[in-house]
């Protein structure tokens, strides 16, 4: 079974074709190995990086931007968002600080410094 995909790993967005035969996935159209890995994952276990924000409770109207350190299962994206909605942090927060550990398989880190 052939499946057409756009690779989302980098802005190039290569048009990929993943050919799924029994347990084998052959990938065409990737300009780099990451694209091949992406296509295989999309067919077997699709994952996504979530980038969002968390409220800084001791600052007025201030959010700190965060991301999942590693991509999480695609069908868990909204579960990650649910946890982030309930989370608050205290400033100062530094870029790289771990805000939460192991949410749906990934740590959540701050991507911005808020003093």
């Amino acid at each position, binding site marked *: 079974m052939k499946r057409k995909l756009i690779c989302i790993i*980098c802005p190039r967005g290569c048009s990929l074709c993943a050919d799924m035969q029994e347990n084998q996935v052959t990938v065409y159209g990737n300009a780099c190995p990451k694209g091949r890995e992406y296509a295989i994952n999309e067919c077997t276990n699709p994952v996504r990086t979530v980038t969002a924000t968390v409220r800084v409770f001791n600052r007025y109207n201030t959010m700190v931007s965060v991301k999942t350190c590693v991509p999480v299962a695609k069908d868990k994206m909204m579960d990650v968002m649910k946890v982030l909605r309930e989370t608050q942090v205290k400033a100062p927060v530094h870029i790289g600080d771990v805000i939460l550990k192991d949410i749906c398989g990934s740590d959540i880190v701050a*991507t911005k410094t808020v003093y």
Partner: protein
Amino acid sequence: MVYHDIVIIGGGPAGMAAAVAAYDAGCIDVVILDREPHLGGILMQCIHNGFGLHKLGKELTGPEYAAVYEEAVRKRNIQVYAETTVTAVSTDKIVTAQNRNGILQIQAKAAILAMGCRERSRGALNICGSRPAGVYSAGTAQKLVNCMGYQVGKKVVILGSGDIGLIMARRMHWEGAKVEAVCEIMPYSGGLPRNIAQCLEDFDIPLYLSTTIVQIHGKKRLEGVTIAQVDDKRQPIEETKRYIPCDTLLLSVGLIPENELTRSAGIPIDPITNGAFVDENCQTKIPGIFACGNVLQVHDLVDYVSEEAERAGLGAAKFVSSGENRNHSIETKAGYGVRYVLPQTITATQEDVSLFLRVTEPFGKVKFSVSNGENILTTAKKLKATPGEMEKITVKAAFLQNITGPITVSLEAL
């Protein structure tokens, strides 16, 4: 009056990269002015990833990319006038600004314009209807959501399928809103295919091409929009009108280089790019005044902004140390298939020159030709070219010798 060698207006990615490059080229009296309390510019609200792959080899979020340059600025002790708004620039390089301390005037030897761009608004689009709350430019909604934590709406329609519109479609969905549709007036999307995949397809958000919004409804708060398909002259087709209930409309319909200061200073602006006319060092027609980043041309990748800003910073540092030194004037022109070419003038031919351009419409396989009269200086083949992705073609110095007349960049569909 305060004196500095180089004044940089804008502390976003362009301003920061220019400052670092100027400093490293030996001009250490360089200052950055920015209206925000912090550096980083528009990157601070671009919390998604995709930044830095070319330049830094890793995929960062906007704030993380900004942090790399902010650290570089801090390490060099480059002075930053924060919360400072520039109100005027003159051609003799006097920069007038204001901040908490009052009015500030800086006499510089060189100035770098790095003010970025602003968004096209509803008023510019002439969308009929009432003026309820709930109509935002996509960037404004992005700032409200990402920096301040507001929920700007619950049922969203987005006009414009450029990257900002697509990114906000995903963002709003992640924040619990229902994104009903993204409408795009052109028959193709202006955004990266990657963003169509990860922002729309991932969430089954429909993309309606050749569609626009013809009316806004709602008294105090937006209640819905009327969409319609458009014909090949981009005029709405009456019979295709359809009402979509919603409480939020995001407009992602174009970025305009923020050149009010440039215009007021009388620095010549190219009506196609909406940015200043520049040479290969990003120097404008006014000696000693440079422009880089989105204020010069709207970019898609911040990596190219940083590279462009480095050229400007280097150029400004050279100007400060050795003055006006432009003895060539080779004009560039956009030929078939090309909307614009930057720089518009090449002033020195000892080094290779990179030309930056955008095509007029989506093409498949193309061959770009850089020619001077009958002579073809260089060619470049691409598998595809779209208006939403800036192209770069390098012309080797050897081919720039003994040129008379303009250099034209055109393409041929293969």
